């Protein structure tokens, strides 16, 4: 298919779009550790009010190319580091595959590290974590759907809430905010111990088992408020509670349940980057005895949020991460040596620090002209092979979606989680991809 550039599209990439750029501090780890076992891919999807027209979607993907130079790239191998370079080929939109968030086959994807899919009324963007984090991907998805609706012929007004194709990308959108906001100095990386691991029957061919619960934000907020907590605290505590309730008692006694919570750093530094700028902290829960009280776990969660969800604590992690990248011995060793070391380090330590992840992308606000055509927004994480569920939360138009992705057949955690919510009087609507029936 030959695509014509729409005259509306601003082709001037501006002064800022570089021919090539380095991977940002967070991005550097993913190409090394990603594989069929864990693709480090996540998905943002928007369901519209009518079936998707693939041709228009293809055109929309094409039109966004000058606006999002950090997305339309291919990764190349240098002698010391990987780097990104503008991708001259076309990103083809495809029907949504049943295997959600499969590790992206860059070769088959014309070198691109993200894919666009359509299924009935849904447009999905699956992104390899190296090019951006959840917030960056959300901006892209919003723009894609906005452009798609524009091409459909609907009158659209961006109200400065969506990046549009008639703008030029800015240097701030392309910056490595880690490097920009990093302050040199001694750092102590917060110590985290090996975590309890949720075990189960793996899907032999891999794949992601999805269970998504949708509920009213109002109801969820009210319940959280009754517990004197924020929604994120409440859901993180509930995840820990569900794992402690359903876990293996013997192994729980030995290792803590570590809930990995990503934090969007943009608001701390007023960053506009569309690349990675997230850090993280752990909420840690030790198993005492069988009398597991939700309130007690919530108190511990709130305490962890209090202590760790602040700039000082997060900066320690950032300093340590950037210092590792800036280390002369690291910089000077060839790429294959770095890969070997990183891979070994990751599988020995970093890989086992989290029992489960819960990420909250927050409330997605759309301009009213666009909101009419969007039914809901979903966020899905990819499942690691053999691993227990991870949760992703996003809300739009008053509906919160809590999506679990798992690599095992068992779904006790999800069952406990959503049953608890419905016991609190929240009306929950469940959908799943029933992955366990295939394997």
């Amino acid at each position, binding site marked *: 298919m030959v695509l014509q550039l729409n005259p509306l599209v601003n082709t001037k990439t501006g002064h800022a779009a570089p021919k090539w750029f380095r991977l940002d501090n967070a991005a550097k780890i993913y190409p090394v550790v990603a594989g069929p076992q864990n693709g480090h891919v996540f998905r943002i999807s928007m369901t519209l009010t009518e079936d998707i027209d693939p041709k228009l979607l293809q055109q929309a993907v094409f039109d966004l190319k000058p606006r999002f130079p950090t997305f339309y790239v291919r990764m190349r191998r240098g002698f010391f580091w990987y780097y990104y370079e503008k991708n001259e080929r076309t990103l083809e939109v495809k029907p949504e*595959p049943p295997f959600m968030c499969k590790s992206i086959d860059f070769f088959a994807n014309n070198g691109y590290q993200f894919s666009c899919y359509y299924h009935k009324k849904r447009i999905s963007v699956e992104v390899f974590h190296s090019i951006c984090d959840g917030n960056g991907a959300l901006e892209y998805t919003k723009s894609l759907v906005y452009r798609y609706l524009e091409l459909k012929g609907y009158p659209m007004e961006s109200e400065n809430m969506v990046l549009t194709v008639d703008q030029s990308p800015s240097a701030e959108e392309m910056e490595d905010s880690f490097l920009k906001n990093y302050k040199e100095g001694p750092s102590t990386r917060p110590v985290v111990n090996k975590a309890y691991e949720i075990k189960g029957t793996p899907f032999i061919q891999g794949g992601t088992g999805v*269970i998504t619960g949708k509920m009213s934000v109002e109801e969820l907020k009210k319940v959280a408020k009754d517990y004197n907590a924020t929604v994120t605290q409440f859901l993180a505590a509930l995840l820990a509670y569900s794992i402690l309730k359903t876990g293996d008692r013997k192994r729980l006694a030995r290792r803590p349940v570590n809930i990995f919570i990503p934090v969007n750093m943009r608001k701390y530094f007023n960053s506009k980057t569309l690349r990675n700028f997230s850090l993280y902290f752990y909420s840690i829960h030790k198993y005492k005895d069988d009398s597991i009280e939700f309130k007690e776990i919530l108190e511990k969660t709130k305490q962890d949020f209090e202590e760790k969800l602040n700039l000082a604590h997060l900066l320690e992690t950032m300093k340590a991460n950037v210092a590792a990248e800036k280390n002369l011995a690291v910089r000077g060793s060839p790429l294959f040596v770095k890969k070997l070391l990183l891979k070994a380090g990751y599988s020995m330590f970093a890989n086992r620090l989290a029992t489960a992840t819960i990420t909250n992308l927050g409330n997605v606000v759309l301009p009213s002209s666009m909101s009419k055509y969007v039914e809901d927004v979903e966020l899905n994480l990819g499942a690691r092979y053999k691993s227990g569920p991870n949760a992703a939360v996003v809300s739009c138009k008053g509906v919160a979606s809590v999506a679990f992705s798992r690599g095992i057949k068992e*779904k006790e955690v999800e069952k406990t989680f959503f049953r608890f919510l419905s016991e609190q009087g929240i009306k929950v*609507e*469940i959908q799943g991809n029933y992955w366990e029936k295939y394997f």
Partner: protein
Amino acid sequence: MLYCIDCKVRITGNSDRCPLCDKHMPGAYQQNPEPKYPEYIPKVRSNRKVAKAMFISAILLIMLSAGINALTWSGSLWSVIFSAYVLYIWLMGLVTFKTRVHLGIKLVGHAISVSVLMLIMNVFISKTGTLNPVTWSVSYGMPIVFIAFIVAAVIIMIKKKQNRKDFLFYLLCLCVAGFVPFIIVLCFLTEPMLPGLIAAAISYLIIMGLAVFARKAIAEEFVKKFHV
């Protein structure tokens, strides 16, 4: 909409089971015709079968030739050459179609491996007692191979406008390798020298041409490839 009384949740999608507790709820298909996610259809992976068949037939051919060679021994180890051929064809197929490295890397890899293969053949074919066992492979074989691969790389670069710059680095590698047969021929004073000289000359011309016309692009390529 379906409702699971055990989980106290509503169910969407077109399955007749609760995603949480697997409770059966009849009549689901009528109520929810739209599946939320596409159906998984298992695929037969023909690629793998072909690869397996190739591997097994390569092994069988090698064993067969070794057997015939041994049974009808006539003083020459022709089965080694034959095995090298078979192994090379198998490896070439594997490397070319299975691995996902840049075409430029594949070109350089093939040029080197074909040269090595010819050296092996040359050594095993030559009769013992010859002063210089390695003759035709460095005199004719390697120069021709390098000229062919350099020409191939140039043609690819002309055709692939979009990714032309990607090949600069690998073309340079091939041109550097293009001097090797001439150097060997000079060291061993093997006759004839002309093909090696031609390969070296072509390599030299291309390197000079690149230095004149593509200096900026090459410099950029080196900055990218070697940034610390």
